[in-house]
């Protein structure tokens, strides 16, 4: 990586282990990103209607503030996030509010949803792109904003983490005097195989990312800001490096390995620090967000546009024409798949998110939510797995576990309902990345067993 360090030295913090930063263990699944990586983001045409679930984030659902038959305009508030850990909801399209409906989210949860029928009166195409990502992002004019003002704008814009977990951003960014933040870390790893949304944003909208990063850093009073990228996305590194020159944002390049994009493992890779077990990045003075999230921060603060759209990769061997799409929230997953040419005959599984941690779903009416980072359609060949045998205690799961656990022991303890033993083996440290199940030569459903154990322990604790 010597040439790499040389080439990017002016933007790379020498303490950020340029190009070499990583964590112990992990896996190298086939990346399969070339399916969609070179497809520029396309603007999805306006759908006839959108279905907006009241819960699209971690926390409490928002309360509807519109009534059936009411007419709304694109960007209007339709759901109010009243609880502290909640997020407001805005309509991406103009039209009439229909009767409330119950919809099923990709993760299987049933949720009340506001349904809006389009009247066609809103921006789309290039005009939509321009207000969302295009044009100039003059950071200087916003340097006088106080952290509180920025955070209020983020709160009003209904922004949540777009990397997948959908945690409300205003909560993450809210200052806590007991845990001062030194460093803002923006995650551009996108370590899930197949997905290319963050990559496309980094290539196509680097100015918005840098502007958003600066605003988020101001909001958390961070002294330094890093954007962490895996070294398989050199075009993104180059694009951000250009956009960030002079801005004071460091581009930290880390090794390509799954799950490098886990927040704890990106911090380890860039800063060499470990977030304490059971703790949060803020415990060691780091605030974490994602490249797509900071673009919505920039938009919310500088252009007063709420979070109504997101970029979604529609990819996988089972999709006729893999694409990256800018879509309104609440559009159906089926519409996206149809726009990409539909399913191939060999398609076997449809996943909201990536193949390692995403949720398989079957209903094409499932709406896109704030946390939908992609739709991955895999073929029979891609989901092929080894024949299940008993555990031969080979220890491969121990060798790959990024949390340095003993997955097979935890899984077997869970299977036998021995939760004392499972706890002794730190079951709750598992974040279900799937590395153990991926590698297991015996084809054991390790993650499923551990998940069951965690659920039982959480249930017993209540």
């Amino acid at each position, binding site marked *: 990586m010597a040439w790499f360090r040389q080439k990017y030295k002016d933007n790379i913090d020498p303490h950020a282990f340029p190009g070499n930063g990583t964590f112990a263990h992990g896996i190298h699944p086939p990346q399969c990103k070339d399916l969609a990586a070179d497809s520029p983001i396309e603007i999805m045409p306006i759908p006839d209607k959108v279905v907006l679930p009241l819960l699209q984030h971690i926390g409490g659902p928002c309360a509807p503030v519109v009534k059936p038959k009411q007419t709304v305009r694109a960007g209007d508030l339709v759901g109010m996030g009243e609880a502290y850990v909640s997020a407001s909801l805005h309509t991406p399209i103009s039209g009439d509010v229909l009767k409330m409906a119950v919809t099923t989210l990709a993760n299987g949860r049933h949720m009340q949803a506001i349904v809006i029928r389009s009247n066609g009166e809103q921006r789309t195409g290039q005009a939509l792109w321009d207000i969302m990502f295009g044009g100039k992002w003059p950071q200087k004019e916003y340097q006088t904003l106080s952290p509180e003002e920025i955070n209020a704008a983020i709160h009003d814009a209904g922004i949540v983490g777009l990397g997948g977990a959908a945690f409300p951003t205003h909560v993450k960014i809210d200052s806590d005097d007991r845990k001062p933040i030194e460093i803002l870390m923006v995650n551009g790893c996108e370590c899930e195989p197949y997905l290319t949304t963050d990559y496309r944003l980094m290539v196509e909208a680097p100015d918005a990312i840098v502007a958003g990063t600066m605003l988020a850093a101001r909001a958390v009073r961070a002294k330094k800001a890093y954007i962490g990228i895996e070294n398989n996305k050199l075009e993104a590194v180059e694009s951000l490096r250009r956009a960030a020159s002079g801005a004071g944002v460091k581009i930290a390049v880390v090794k390509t390995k799954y799950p490098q994009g886990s927040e704890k493992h990106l911090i380890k890779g860039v800063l060499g620090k470990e977030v304490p077990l059971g703790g949060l990045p803020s415990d060691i003075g780091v605030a974490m967000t994602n490249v797509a999230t900071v673009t919505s921060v920039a938009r919310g603060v500088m252009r007063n546009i709420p979070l109504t759209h997101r970029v979604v990769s529609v990819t996988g061997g089972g999709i006729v024409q893999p694409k990256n799409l800018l879509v309104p929230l609440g559009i159906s997953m089926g519409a996206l798949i149809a726009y990409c040419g539909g*399913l191939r005959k060999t398609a076997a599984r449809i996943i909201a998110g990536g193949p390692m941690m995403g949720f398989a779903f*079957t209903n094409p009416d499932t709406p896109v939510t704030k946390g939908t980072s992609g739709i991955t359609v895999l073929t029979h060949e891609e989901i092929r797995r080894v*024949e299940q045998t008993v555990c*031969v*205690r080979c220890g491969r799961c121990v060798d790959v576990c990024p949390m*340095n656990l003993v997955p097979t022991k935890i899984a077997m303890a869970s299977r036998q309902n021995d939760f004392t033993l499972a706890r002794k083996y730190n079951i709750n440290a598992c974040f279900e990345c799937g590395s153990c199940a991926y590698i297991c030569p015996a084809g054991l459903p390790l993650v*499923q067993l551990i998940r069951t154990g965690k659920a039982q322990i959480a249930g017993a604790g209540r």
Partner: protein
Amino acid sequence: MNTDITENNSGPLIHVAPSPHVYSTQLTTRNMMRDVLISLVPVMLAALYYFRWLAVKQLFICVVSCLVAEAVFTRLRGRAISLKDLSAAVTGIILALSLPATAPWYVGVIGSTAAMGIGKMVFGGLGMNIFNPAMVGRAFVMIAFSGLLAASGYVAGGGVDIISQATPLTIYKQSGMVTPLPALILGKVNGSLGETSALACLIGGLFLCLRRTASWELSAGVLVGASIIGGVANVLNISNPWSVVHHLNSGALLFGAFFIATDPVTSPLTPRGKWIFGLGVGAFLMVFRLFSGYPEGLMFAVLLMNAVTPLLNRWTIPRPFGGA
């Protein structure tokens, strides 16, 4: 568990399942066993070269007996027959290679039956056993037919030269004569079928470790453990002129370090546990060689460490990421 949701009959059949949705398919239990078989090829070739038809006979008897025993025992337990995971074949070959060429046919048959029955099936089959099945089988016949498997049992007349004299460790123990290193490395000495050629064990063992089918920590542990005790013995003049290098290249040490101690089922899961296990095997083996009546101690060393493996697993729970 899979759900059929096709909207109409023309579309593809879509399944749901929990994550992860992709798997590494190169690595399977069967492939791991196949790797072990491949790694044993150099050792088997050396055995065939030095022991001729005696090696053929012993390998044939043990492999067939192990396969039959596995089939019969799985049948008795009412389980699906599991021969195609190749683990019974591996046990058969390792047992055969740890027996003397001169052992009569019924030793192989009874040893194999004990290996599969007492060593593996009573615990619940593959993955469940505590003790290395091949070593259980060998211990069984060693006690049952002590004369045939003691030092004198290795010596016999007949068409094969090298079985006309005792094994190098026995010769040294009895007369103080030191077998030259080249003979130990190439394997032109008497001994159990698979153990005589240090070179063949090394080639097969390195293949296993490079493929990561065997954990290198286990093999390294055995070698380091034996070297430490052997080295101390050298310094204290306990076993000169039989040096630590002779120890490493003689007897079942290398065969055990690469093919027996590395059985994943009966060795610890964690890297630290693997090191302790290997060091323990190496150290016990040397203690037995130096201070017991037996010339060799690998089998007992492995069985002893097998017994503490569950404890090692509990004592060596790794520090989780971010843990204290």
